[in-house]
């Protein structure tokens, strides 16, 4: 079969992150091609490059053998690239037909609504994507809205359909219907690029799969030949499997305990529902779960960044539920936030200033309200040395550093405060292999030093290799807490969907 879309050695760099660093892809006419990779592997960046939202810093993209360069999504659409985004871009108040033809309406100055409905109906029959063209989008289910999105790109004569994590928002039944649609489109000769991080899904739908890891494409292979184990190894990277040596360690006293904690978001929707857990000194408690199941809200509430709507947080035997975040920091809660550039650092500040960001009111950084520049600088120099931050220049702006070094600066700052509890959210997200290993080693060193560590990660392997116990969250609740040394991928994966297996039920009592 001939290649329809080729991506050759494409690179895309952002300050501090190599989002795509040598990506090769070859989608043949009439196939369903999956792209598999963990969060942060660079899948979304690649899709944005193909659909013209980003322009590559290197390499080339070929469509039917011709080199193309898209300056905008409009160029890509014109060339026949049809992108269905993970987050829908529909106008709820308009009808299905209106949404589909929007921007390319039939009729001259006067919009010919009847013609629009007719065309949409014809299109939906041709591709067997049944949906009522006259229905209001606001009243459709998520699955049907996705159909409208697909029709929208087909209406613009897409010759390649890209589905970005399409099942993330669907129920299992809706996902099955989507697969039907995909198979039918394939039969009509439309190649489909299917982005996912779910193994089973890829094996169910794709002809071939390309695995991405850390911004690179690792391998492309026919799904028929690939075992789940093989794909998982490729995704995580066999040669970098971080089976870090985890020495024996007995957990000490309870450092943090959370009882029946509930948190609601700004729209008063409950995000955390009655979570109870405890972290002991010298133990790493991993929190696993699909993104958006309340993990971030839980740790933000523990750090005091968002208010709780119910429950109690006890730290070192004292109730800290009502304390402001600065006071909790001072009492010994360190926090490595998920988004290091947004929350963790002030990119325009020097490393010295970033080091004192959290403790500026205390020595050695200030005395009686006055900054101690010399002492702060000396302290920073020591930290840069100890954590091997490069460049080792305290006067550099944080924004000049690579992602891995930025993370080292944050970790150095948090660890140097000798905290009793370290909260780390996705501490290795988007980092290269060497940096990941370094961060993991630091976490284990802290565990040895008797600190309590709460590790939130979307990477199952990170959770599995580091945690002493694993709490799995689903829909704002802790489904179960299982011991880390006996936990398996399958077991955790099942719990992440909210299903409790019978054997793990005896392991730990958890809340409802």
């Amino acid at each position: 079969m001939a290649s329809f879309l080729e991506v050759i050695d494409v690179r895309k760099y952002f300050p501090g992150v190599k989002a795509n660093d040598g990506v090769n892809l070859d989608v043949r006419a009439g196939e369903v091609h999956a792209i598999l990779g963990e969060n942060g592997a660079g899948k979304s960046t690649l899709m944005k490059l193909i659909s013209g939202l980003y322009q590559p810093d290197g390499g080339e993209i070929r469509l039917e053998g011709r080199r193309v360069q898209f300056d905008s999504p409009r160029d890509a659409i014109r060339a026949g690239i049809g992108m269905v985004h993970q987050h829908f871009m529909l106008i709820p108040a308009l009808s299905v037909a209106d949404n589909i033809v929007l921007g390319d309406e039939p009729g001259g100055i006067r919009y010919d609504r009847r013609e629009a409905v007719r065309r949409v109906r014809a299109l939906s029959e041709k591709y067997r994507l049944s949906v009522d063209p006259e229905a209001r989008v606001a009243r459709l289910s998520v699955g049907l809205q996705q159909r409208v999105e697909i029709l929208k790109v087909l209406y613009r004569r897409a010759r390649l359909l890209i589905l970005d994590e399409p099942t993330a928002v669907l129920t299992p039944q809706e996902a099955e219907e989507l697969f039907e649609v995909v198979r039918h489109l394939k039969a009509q000769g439309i190649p489909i690029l299917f982005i996912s991080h779910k193994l089973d899904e890829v094996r169910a739908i794709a002809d071939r799969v390309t695995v991405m890891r850390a911004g690179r494409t690792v391998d492309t292979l026919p799904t028929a030949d690939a075992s789940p184990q093989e794909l998982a190894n490729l995704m995580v990277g066999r040669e970098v499997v971080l089976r870090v040596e985890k020495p024996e360690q007995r957990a000490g006293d309870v450092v943090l305990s959370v009882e029946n904690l509930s948190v609601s978001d700004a729209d008063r929707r409950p995000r955390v529902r009655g979570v109870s857990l405890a972290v002991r000194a010298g133990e790493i408690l991993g929190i696993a779960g699909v993104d958006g199941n309340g993990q971030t809200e839980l740790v933000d509430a523990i750090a005091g960044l968002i208010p709780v709507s119910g429950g109690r947080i006890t730290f070192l035997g004292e109730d800290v539920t009502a304390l402001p975040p600065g006071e909790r920091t001072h009492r010994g809660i360190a926090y490595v936030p998920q988004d290091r550039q947004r929350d963790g650092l002030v990119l325009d500040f020097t490393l010295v200033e970033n080091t004192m960001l959290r403790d500026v009111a205390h020595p050695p950084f200030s005395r009686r309200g006055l900054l101690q520049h010399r002492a702060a600088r000396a302290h920073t120099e020591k930290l840069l040395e100890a954590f091997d931050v490069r460049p080792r220049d305290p006067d550099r702006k944080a924004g000049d550093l690579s992602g891995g070094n930025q993370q080292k600066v944050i970790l150095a700052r948090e660890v140097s405060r000798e905290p009793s509890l370290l909260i780390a959210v996705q501490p290795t997200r988007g980092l290269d292999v060497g940096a990941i290993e370094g961060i993991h080693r630091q976490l284990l060193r802290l565990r040895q030093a008797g600190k309590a560590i709460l590790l939130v990660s979307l990477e199952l392997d990170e959770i599995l290799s580091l945690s002493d116990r694993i709490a799995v969250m689903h829909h704002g609740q802790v489904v179960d807490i299982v011991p880390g040394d006996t936990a398996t991928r399958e077991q955790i994966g099942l719990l992440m969907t909210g299903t409790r297996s019978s054997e793990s039920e005896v392991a730990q009592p958890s809340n409802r």
Partner: protein
Amino acid sequence: MLASVVAILIGAVIAAVLGFNPLAAYGALVTGAFGTSMALSSTLAGAVPLALAGLGVAVAFRAGLFNIGAEGQYWIGVIVAVWLGYHLTGLPGWLHTLVCVVGATLAGGLWGGVIPGLAKAYRGAHEVITTMMMSYIAIYFGQYLIAAGGPMHAPGYNAQSPQIVKDAWLTVLLPPQLTTAVFFAIGAALVVWWGTFHTTVGFRLRAVGANPHAARYAGISVPVYTVLALGLSGMLAGLAGGVQVLALDHRLMWGFNTGYGYTAIVVALMARNHPFGVLLAALFFSALSTGGQNMQMVSQLPSSLTDVLTGLIVFFVAAERIVPLTIAWYRRRRGARAQVASAREGGR
């Protein structure tokens, strides 16, 4: 700096196109601003309120806030200083001056900072709107006070207030205009510089301005620092008004509308919010305005050219980041065009 150089060059081109000798015009501008002791006195005196209000705007900018209402805070400062200036009698001169200055400062802080600051921090009202609205209220309130029948109207035909007691006036250093007010400007710049870069409060204020998310995560109360930054900003603008009225006009009068509060925004922009840069920028704009009159007299080139220069400077300060972006965009575009064209031909 670069912005003002480019602006001056373009100004020269405009002057030349209009048929004037740009060198002669600029020469007249410089002598008009610095050439005689009288000129120097006016230029320095004019720089004082610009510098003080400019420091105020810069402090807000540092915290990521846009205090556009410095003009109104300036007015409130003038009103309070004048009222205290003629109501209180029997105080020793220095104390009376001090009371007027402190009153003006506090009033400006309340007007510009506390009210818009609280509205922003707890209700999300944007400070550009609130400071501007408060500014209009202050200006029209001032005009009402001195209109015939107004509470501060002095007997007579003119819309003006009574004069501040003479003992409270600031001392003239270099006639006709330069007074001890200049020390307030230099002192304020030093205090702002020291406060911004050497105290924990200044550090936190800068952190809030540079990245409010990180500041919140670091345990800094963003609402408190929003109120604080706007409060300090208003205080400096109020101080500008108080000092100016004690130095020069000594009363509130019709037509007092100076525009110092607006030029202060440009001053802060040009100085990139650095306190000492504000002093220089204030001097620059004051020189433009005093020198502009001399330029008009000597070379017949309309003094509104100085307004053109001001506009160009604002434009280029704002554009400093646009220029490299435009160049990068143009390069990419030129490289890409050929390829897209060829792809389209074959794509259909």
